[in-house]
């Protein structure tokens, strides 16, 4: 059980390390989208602080939607996904490991770099920490839900737009709590309740999403 998780995780991380530019590009995309916003606005300190957390969160959403497609794409095309599905190990665990690997190379860097973006938006130190905290709890949910969408669309030739249509509505709760918790913290309120809710969403997603992803993958593979 643990071995299959470990082996898949190792393989996917190794693939990411060998393909560093792609990982760097995702991060760059995230930073660029967030950095373009102030350029398109009348730069004013209050406005930037007000929209900053939301912009960072929406950028994280877009970066995840764009990157999550690579989760199963290459494995599907070269047939290794079929082998994983045929192996005696439960596909749910393989999926869980792959999503974890995806989060480690996409979600975690976003969390790490988010304070830098918070600086661009003139967010004070405490808000910066809250923003990073919400991203830490929220980005794994984004990866997990995105995996379900990818598993459903991986058999399609042009699944990208459909994937976005499927996944973005599912991201609404995470976005609502993620971005608004930072606003709440900026207003000086207690933020423990929304953090608990984000944690609950993560727990639910970790429990249910890999099973749904595995079921969806089996459907896509049979076609």
């Amino acid at each position, binding site marked *: 059980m643990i071995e299959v998780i470990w082996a898949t995780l190792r393989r996917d991380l190794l693939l990411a390390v060998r393909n560093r530019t792609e990982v760097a590009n995702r991060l760059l995309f995230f930073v660029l989208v967030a950095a373009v916003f102030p350029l398109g606005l009348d730069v004013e300190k209050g406005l930037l602080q007000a929209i900053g957390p939301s912009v960072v969160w929406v950028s994280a959403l877009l970066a995840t939607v764009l990157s999550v497609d690579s989760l199963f794409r290459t494995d599907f095309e070269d047939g290794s996904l079929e082998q994983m599905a045929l192996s005696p190990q439960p596909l749910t665990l393989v999926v869980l490991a792959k999503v974890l690997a995806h989060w480690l190379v996409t979600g975690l860097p976003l969390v790490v770099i988010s304070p830098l973006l918070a600086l661009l938006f003139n967010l004070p130190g405490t808000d910066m920490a809250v923003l990073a905290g919400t991203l830490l709890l929220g980005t794994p949910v984004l990866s997990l*839900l995105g995996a*379900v969408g990818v598993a*459903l*669309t991986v*058999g*399609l030739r042009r*699944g990208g*737009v*459909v994937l976005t*249509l*499927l996944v*973005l*509505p*599912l991201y*609404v*709760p995470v976005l*609502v*709590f993620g971005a*608004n918790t930072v*606003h*709440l913290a900026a207003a000086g309120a207690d933020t423990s*309740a*929304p953090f608990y*809710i984000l944690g609950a*969403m993560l727990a*639910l997603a970790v429990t*249910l*999403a890999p099973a*749904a992803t595995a*079921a*969806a993958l089996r*459907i*896509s593979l*049979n*076609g």
Partner: protein
Amino acid sequence: MFRALVNFYHRLGSPPHFYRISGKWIPWLIGIALVMIAIGWTWGLIFAPTDYEQGDAYRIIYIHVPAAWLSMFAYVCMAAAGAMGLIWRMKMAEVMAVTAAPIGAGFTFLALASGSIWGKPMWGTWWVWDARLTSELVLLFLYLGVIALDNAIEDRRIAGRAVGILALVGVVNIPIIHYSVQWWYTLHQGPTVTKFSSPSIYWSMLVPLLIMGIAFMIFFAGAWLMRARNELLRREASKRWARELPEAS
């Protein structure tokens, strides 16, 4: 009695039987729905008392509220059909799941449009980012996602099962979306708009509303069966039973 029900259920799972049985039901369902809509609207739009706060403008609830009910009901129906299709691999359940989405999207759009027409005189704006409106909008996007997925997959069997999974994921997500939006706005700024939330509604306003709710539900059933029959013919056009239908010759 139970045996007969089970037999009937299994027969519904077979396309030719479903086609025949639903053909008999549809005129009844649509007919009853139209009669009830006529009663409900006449009662609601003409005879129900005028609201002392909102005047006659409130009468749009006889479209708005049943449409909003059905928008959620249709999603649950779609998810239930999707689950049946996934668990028992029933072809008919897949057809039902796929065909519920456009009707549900229609009801959701009707609820949003009528709500926005109602909101203009009441709140002074077409749209508010209120909890219920937002979750209804997300529901519309979920429906559109299901329709997009269904259209994108060519193989009808795969499309049916993929839609089933997406509908199930959505049905887990809908309460979360609803409550996240609702908790958020109550946590954040309190209700910004006076909602139609008074628990007691005068019975002469309520009865036509309930009639409309049931009428929309029966109409949904009829429209659903009609769509399912079309989808069935599209899938099974080359099968012998479909070619031997009297309407095919």
